[in-house]
């Protein structure tokens, strides 16, 4: 059974106000790697994984939806192990909503 993002969170993410913030964790080349990373960090229910790239071969891992930058920063600080392994960046959520839409049109 391939990994899928929690539909509730997916919805929350995609419908969140544009000025909200999220954490761009990393990119992986397989859904399995993405799933493993999220499971290892136990952040599956607060994460959103989606394909992007010309052929949809890349998987973007996003974490959390925060109304303020401070909250996003506080959440990122709590992900110490993740921060050591990857280079997570707090971004405006709208940027990733647009990215999702660009590569995941139905």
């Amino acid at each position, binding site marked *: 059974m391939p990994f899928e993002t929690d539909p509730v969170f997916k919805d929350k993410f995609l419908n969140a106000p544009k000025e909200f*913030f999220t954490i*761009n964790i*990393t*990119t*992986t*080349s397989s859904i399995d790697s993405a799933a493993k990373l999220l499971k290892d960090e136990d952040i599956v229910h607060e994460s959103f994984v989606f394909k992007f*790239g010309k052929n949809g*071969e*890349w998987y*973007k891992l996003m974490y959390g939806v925060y109304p303020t*930058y401070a909250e*996003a920063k506080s959440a990122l600080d709590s992900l110490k192990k993740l921060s050591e392994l*990857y*280079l997570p*960046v*707090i*971004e*405006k959520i709208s*940027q990733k909503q647009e990215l999702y839409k660009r590569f995941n049109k139905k």
Partner: protein
Amino acid sequence: MKKLLFFIPLIALSIFLSTYFYYSSLVDEAEVKKELSIEDMKKELLASASQSVASNNLVLFEKIVKNLQNRTSLQNVNIKLKKYYFSDELLLKSVASIDESWNILEISIDAMQGTIAYMPDGRYEILTNDKNSAPANITIKFEVEKNSIIKEFLYIYETQKEIKTDKSTAELKSLSYEENDFTLTFEYGDISINKEDIADKTRSFLLNILFITISVFILFVLIYNYLIRPKFRKTIESLNEYIKNILDGRVIKEVSIPKEFSNEFGLLNQNILNLSKKNFSLSSELSISKDIIYQKEKTDELTGLPNKKSFENDIKYMFIANKNGFIIQLKIDKIGEFTNNHGPELVDALIEEFSYLIKNFLDTNPKYDGTIYRFFGAEFAMIVYDVTSQEIEDMLIEIIEITKKLSYKYYFFENEIYYGATPFDNYGTIESILQSAKDTYENAIKEKSKHYYIADEKNQQELNKKLEQSVKEIIARKDFVLQYIYDTYDFNSSPKLLMQEVSALIVDSLTLECIPSRKFLSVAKKLGYIMDFDKALIEKVLFEIELGKFTHKICIALSSTSLSNQLFLSWLEEFLKTTPYRKNLIFVAPSYSVASNYDKFVSFCTFLRNNELEFMIKQYHISDLELQKLLKLSPSYLRLERAYCQDFKRDSSKQHIVKQILLFCDENGIKVLGDSLKNEQDYLAFEMLGFYGTSR
């Protein structure tokens, strides 16, 4: 070489000016360089800023700035970007482990810093949240992929950069450039001229120029001393030698001046040769003319025999040389009557033949060293040297025998030629000797039969012995009085007495007769008392001057014995030191005496000059003493012989000689005096010619 010292200040000035101008040029050059370096620095800084911003490479900019900071006066630099562009290439090149074959998957920045916009040209632009205050560094995260391998990297994007320096400069200038993409602010120090460097260069220049100057100077001295001077000296020596030859009257046939001075010296050679020939020719002509004049002056025109003047000179010579001999007066008696009967032509022929016979007799008889002189008319005299009474008698007998034939030839039936011979009296005078000869001649006429009379030599010897005794006593007792003659006046309207000559008036105490001064001096000289007499004479003259008798100068004639005696001169020097009236004395000597004792007088004149005493040559005749010989004597006064002074205006040859003498004396500071000027016209002429004074 001493003249070269004159150039030292000029050389020093030149060196100073050169150094000053060099220093000024260095300062000007440094000023220009300073301006150029600041301008260059600004240009380079702006160019590198533009290039670095365009290539998003402020690291490169920092490198260039640091380099500029080291090279120039550039100090703190700040560059602030206005827009923040970057490209894939920048990001890929920022990581050593990847290359441009990797693909960029995503680029993101922290939301607090801004967002990234994608430019149409493929580049990216960071849009900061606060447009006016961008953070100094923006962290860009980028993800790259190759062969399904994904890597993440961070790139620190600098929006501004400050490059500081430790240099400290007193005065700082600040500049800011606003460009489209960046603002550049920088500080730089006002470059001061490197005075130490300029001073070093100036010092070095000065040392070099001094070294060159000294080297050139030494080189010049060496060239001058070892090349030019010896050549020059050699040439001058050659010229001197030629001129000396010319002066000595030698003809130069060849001149060997160094050939390297070819053309000019070739011409000089020719001129010297011409001058030599011309000089030789002129001096030959002159000496021939001179000889002719002298010969004429001393020769009888009719017979060619020496005349009375010549006789007198020879007598003077006998006095000076202390010669012995006989003086003979001879005369063809009643010549007037003969002339009336036979006419002057025959008389002349008679006189000529008579002269020839006697002259020929003397010339062909070497045992008789003698000369015949014609005085005038039929009156003759003879001097025969170093003969006894017997020899003179033998000679006269022979002469009478020879001349007998004239009686027949010229219808001269009575032999009327008489001879009176008298021994030469060393103590006599020309006049006394002539008188003595005349007396013997009268005796010969009285005796008639012998036609000659010879004075008794012994009688004269006895008289001389008595005279010698008297002279000894007179000198021992200083028993003589002074008389002053030759009053010499200047040419003022009321003539002032310039000088007189002292003469001793000597009276023989036995005969109470005056002893002629000349005779007295001769005796004193022979007896060796002449210096005592000269001393007594000087003492008496000075005594009379001290008494206030004279304000003019007194001339004293000393004997040649005294003036050449060192003891006498020492006495004279010491004696005159004690008197303030030494300036009143003039020592005097006749020119024939000076000529006969030239070296003694040269030495005496040097003595007089050293003691600031004056000397006068009297009875000066150019035939006695050449003008050039006066130079060594350097007399204060020159009194011309009476013959030059009398009938001066009527005799052009005298005028010519006197003018020559005056010209020479004027050039050599000698005052010229006349003697016994009788004629008023001559007096005026002498005054016009600038004579110092004259006796009348």
